[in-house]
C-alpha cells in the first residue's frame, strides 16, 4: 500500500488502514458538527435533519469502502457542512423563508379546522400529543401550536397554571444559574472572581460547612439565592 492508495483508495487496503480512516473521518465530522452549531445536534430544522442523515452515511460508506477516496470524503464533509451552515444563516437572516413555520392549531380554546387539515394532523394525533404535554381536557388550552420540528406545544389558560410567587404577593427572590467554584478538588478562580469573591471568602465558607480543604470537595457551586452547594 502506498500513500496514494491510502488517500485516494485502491482495490484493497490492509485492515488497519480502515482504523486510521475511521479516526480521520470521525475527527472531521466532529469538527464539522462544531461548525454547524448546537441547532444541528438537536435537529431543530428540516435541513438539519436531512444533513444529519446524509453527511454521516456518506462518511460511513467512505470509511469502509477501500475503493473510495478518503480525500473526497473529507472534502464532501466540509463542503456539506458549509452548505448546512449557509442554509442556517439564511434562516437567521430571512426567517420563515427557509424553514417551515409553526402553525396555530388551537386559538383562544377553539380548534382551527383549516390549520389542522393544512398540517395534516388528525384529532387523535393532537389529543395524544396534548396528553404527553399533561393536558387532559380541551378547556385547559389557550393556544396549541405545531412547531417546525413537528412537536406540538400548548399554552394553558392562565387560570389553570400553578400559582406564582407574584400572585401570592411573596417577596422578591433572587434567581440565577449556579456558578461552579470547585470541581474535582480544583478551585475555579475565574468563576470566583466573576461573583466578586476571593479565596479567603471561599475558604471560610467551606470551613463553615465543616470541610477542611477544597481538595476534599468534588463540586461546590454558588447558587442564585446566595448559598453554597457542596457535594463531596
Amino acid at each position, binding site marked *: 500500500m502506498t500513500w496514494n492508495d491510502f488517500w485516494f483508495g485502491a482495490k484493497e487496503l490492509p485492515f488497519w488502514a480502515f*482504523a486510521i*480512516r*475511521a479516526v480521520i473521518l470521525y475527527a472531521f465530522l*466532529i469538527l464539522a458538527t462544531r461548525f454547524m452549531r448546537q441547532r444541528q445536534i*438537536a435537529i431543530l430544522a428540516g435541513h438539519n435533519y436531512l444533513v444529519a442523515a446524509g453527511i454521516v452515511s456518506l462518511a460511513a460508506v467512505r470509511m*469502509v469502502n477501500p475503493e473510495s477516496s478518503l480525500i473526497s470524503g473529507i472534502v464532501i464533509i466540509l463542503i456539506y457542512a458549509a452548505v448546512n451552515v449557509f442554509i442556517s444563516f439564511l434562516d*437567521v437572516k430571512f426567517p420563515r423563508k427557509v424553514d417551515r413555520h409553526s402553525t396555530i392549531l388551537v386559538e383562544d380554546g377553539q380548534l382551527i379546522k383549516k390549520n389542522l387539515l393544512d398540517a395534516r394532523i388528525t384529532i387523535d394525533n393532537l389529543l395524544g400529543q396534548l396528553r404527553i404535554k399533561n393536558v387532559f381536557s380541551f378547556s385547559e388550552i389557550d393556544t396549541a401550536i405545531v*412547531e*417546525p420540528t413537528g412537536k406540538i406545544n400548548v399554552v394553558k389558560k392562565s387560570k389553570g397554571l400553578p400559582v406564582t410567587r407574584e400572585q401570592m404577593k411573596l417577596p422578591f427572590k433572587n434567581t440565577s*444559574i449556579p456558578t461552579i467554584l470547585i470541581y474535582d478538588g480544583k478551585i475555579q478562580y475565574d468563576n470566583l472572581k466573576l461573583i466578586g469573591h476571593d479565596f479567603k471568602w471561599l475558604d471560610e465558607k467551606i470551613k463553615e460547612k465543616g470541610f477542611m480543604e477544597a481538595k476534599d470537595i468534588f463540586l461546590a457551586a454558588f447558587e442564585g439565592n446566595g448559598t453554597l452547594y457542596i457535594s463531596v
Partner: protein
Amino acid sequence: MEGIWNSVQDLNAWGFAARTLIVGVMLYISSRFLPHRSGGQYAGYDFTFFWMMGGLIASPLFDSKINFINTITAAVTIYIMHYLISFIGVKSRAFARVVFGKAEVLVSGGQIQKKNMLKSLFPIELLLSQLREIDAPNIAEVDTAILETSGRVSALKKSVHTPVTPSDLNISVPGGGLPSILVNDGKIVDKNLEAIGHDRKWLMGELNKMGVMDIKDVYLSTIDGAGKVYCSQSGRKGR
C-alpha cells in the same frame, strides 16, 4: 456464498438478505454496548458517533464491495475514540470546552443576546419555539435562557413568575424522592425491604390492610419517602 462476508464485485438479492441478517446481529451487539451519553446526545461528538454508528453498521448493505471485517474495524475504532474523548472530557474541563463546545447564553437578565444568537445561527422564531417547548411561552417571564451543547434550550424564569413551592409558604412536607420497589410480580425484594428496616412480616401486615391475602396476587408494591405503601394487584380491573 463467499461474497456474504467478503467483498465481491456483485452480490445477488439472497446474498444481501444474508448480509442483512448479519447486520441485524451487529445491530444487537452494538446497541447493547452503546454508551448512555451517545443516546442523550449531550454534545456534538455524541451526535456524530450515534448517527455514524447507524450508517456504519448498515454499510455492508450499501455496496457488495464493502466487507464486514472493514466495517467492524471502523466501528470498533469509532467506539474507542468516543470512549477516549468522553474520558478526557470528564478529566479536563478545558478539553471539554474545546471539543464539546460551550453553552451559549441567549437571554440574560430578560434581554436577548443578539451576538450569541447570530453566533449560534439561532433565529428568533426558533428561540420562541424552543421556549414554548419548555413551558415558557412568554419571553417576558424569562430571566435567563441558555442554549445547551445538546442544542436544547433551558430557561430560568424570573422569580415572580415561578410557581409557589411549599418552602415559600413555610410548609414542611415529609417524604419525596424515589419510591423503592418492595414486591415485583409476586416476588418480595428483600434487599429493599431490609434497606428501609422492615421485614416480611411487616410487609404482609401492610398488604393485608389493603385486602391482599396472597403475595402472589401483588403485581407491584412500592414504598415512598413518606412511608406510604402502594400496591397494585394482578388481574384487578380499573374503572
